[in-house]
């Protein structure tokens, strides 16, 4: 994946994550604020692990299982994933 492709991915990743969080929280996606900690929606450690698995399958990447614990809002998750993918593509370019 190239860095230039990341920017368009971001809005769709945000809406996908809002949909998934809403699914686990049993709420409407519109009710999910991407800047609010997922624990506020009742997403405990178990849901955080499940969400990480969904995200891995959705993006086809391998993440730390604890990624949602360390980046507990949708915004933080997106930033982390972009940094990670950007970092790996830079490494690939360098190699």
């Amino acid at each position, binding site marked *: 994946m190239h860095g230039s492709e990341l920017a368009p991915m971001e809005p769709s990743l945000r809406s996908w994550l809002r949909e998934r969080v809403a699914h686990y929280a049993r709420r409407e996606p519109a009710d999910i604020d991407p800047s609010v900690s997922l624990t506020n929606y009742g997403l405990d450690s178990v849901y955080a692990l499940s969400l990480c*698995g969904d995200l891995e399958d959705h993006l086809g990447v391998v993440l730390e*299982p604890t990624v949602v614990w*360390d980046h507990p809002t949708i915004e933080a998750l997106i930033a982390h994933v972009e940094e990670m993918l950007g970092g790996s593509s830079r490494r690939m370019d360098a190699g």
Partner: protein
Amino acid sequence: MIATELERRFGDPWDSGNPTGHAAVLAADERGETFAAGEQVLDAVGLNAEFVPVDLGGRLARLDHLIQVMRPVFRRDPALGLGYGVSSLIAAVNVWAAGDASQRRRVADLLLAGGRVAAGYHELAHGNDFAGNDLSALPGPDGVLRLNGRKEVIANAGRAEAMVLFARTSSEPGSRSHSQLLAERADLPAGAFRDLPRFPTSGMRGVQLGGLEFRDCPVPADTVLGVPGHGVETALRSFQITRTVLPAMATGILEAGLDVTARFVDARMLYGRSLADMPHIRSILADAFVDLLICECLATVTARSVHLLPDETSLYASASKYFIATLLTDAVYELSRVLGAQFYLRDGEYGIFQKHLRDLPPASFGHSARATCLGTVLPQLPRLARKAWRGGDAPPSEVYRPGGPLPPLSFDRLTLSSGGRDSHSAALTAALDAPDVPADLRRHLLVAANELGTLGLECAALAPRDLTVDARPEVLELPARYAAVLAATACVNVWLHSRDRSEDFLADPQWVTAALRRIAGRLGRDPGPRPRHHDEALAADVLARHRRGGGFGLFGL
């Protein structure tokens, strides 16, 4: 080897004059005392070294060897096994998993010198909900961490030189707000903590279960284990080791139960005939024996998986703990029916049976309740249904070869979720294609394979609410059924990988056919009529092993 040496030093359990025989074990239990003569035997072999990794000067290299050493201890006295060693192990694995070099060195030195470490997780108000714990370690105005709160029903709380305490180190919500603290009793100021009175118990009465209460108790700066706030992760990784080895060690309790029951059956005459000749009695002996073999097979494969498939262990450790604890509890209860009134008499020749019966619950569902183990497996099932169970690669065959070589134990490679991987499920499918599988075994094998297919359909459709503690009770049946399938997979593959060794007990298809038959029954399937010759052969084996005075396990000792 240490296990043989332990057996030799423990001596004949039935010799009433033996200071470490059944009579002495029972007398210590009646007094609610630590079994001092037993502890002396464990001191003499330097048992603590079994809990310390080789690179720190101990003997801990392989979990299957650790289990083998501890099984005779649990067979003799479960309270000795828990009270002497395993409680230190439960604490120490946190240090091996997360501690820095100096913390690891301190704990290794303490254990190798014969000391103890208490595992301070439990608070009565929170049970296994350890993330809900109240003990806090928050910085005071001077920046020094201060402990406030209680830990309760902690083995050796009063006599351990050090303790690993699970405490809240941040008031933020989420899973990065707890840490383990490694505290040494001598470093804590008197007056800032107190020992709680011992908790009287019905089982494990020889274990000194106490507690600690802290009030603004300052702890040294280097007390936190690993990255501050990573306590939940460290716990969930460490528990994979303890959930793997504890139930495996506790199979010694069923071995002891089989030995007592065989002795009773051998001696007893009813209605003018030996109890051993009654088909009903033989079927109970055979079933308990087969359950023991299933437990050992699953325990061994799980222990080998920790080495060979560490990133899938979160799944197997919890599924195994649930299944083994369930089988042990049920099997010992069934044996109690053979003993009649003797099963609850507290003295006399068979008095040891009721002690083991009382010790079994805390040994098998203490530390992590069975429901907690199912709760670890359950949220992983939907992804397994989407990925692993739709096809994948079988694991390396070494995982099914008891006693075979293993790569080193790697705490770093244990992860919190199997990530949709389940190599063992592919080995179940592969076993269906193995040549020369006897027809009755194959029929039971198909039950397990069909069960996995059904699980795949049901787990893929699970609603989010059903993945957590809000799950409907019937949903917890899913991880329980998965555990049964895993047990069948372990048994059939251990047999497939042993059958070329014709002189070996494991090579005979009889035990594995009986094992898969039992598992099919547990899955609620009708396994067909009991093959009577199996009952006779298996019960005869139990009686023969009793008369020889050896163990009842799959692997000799």
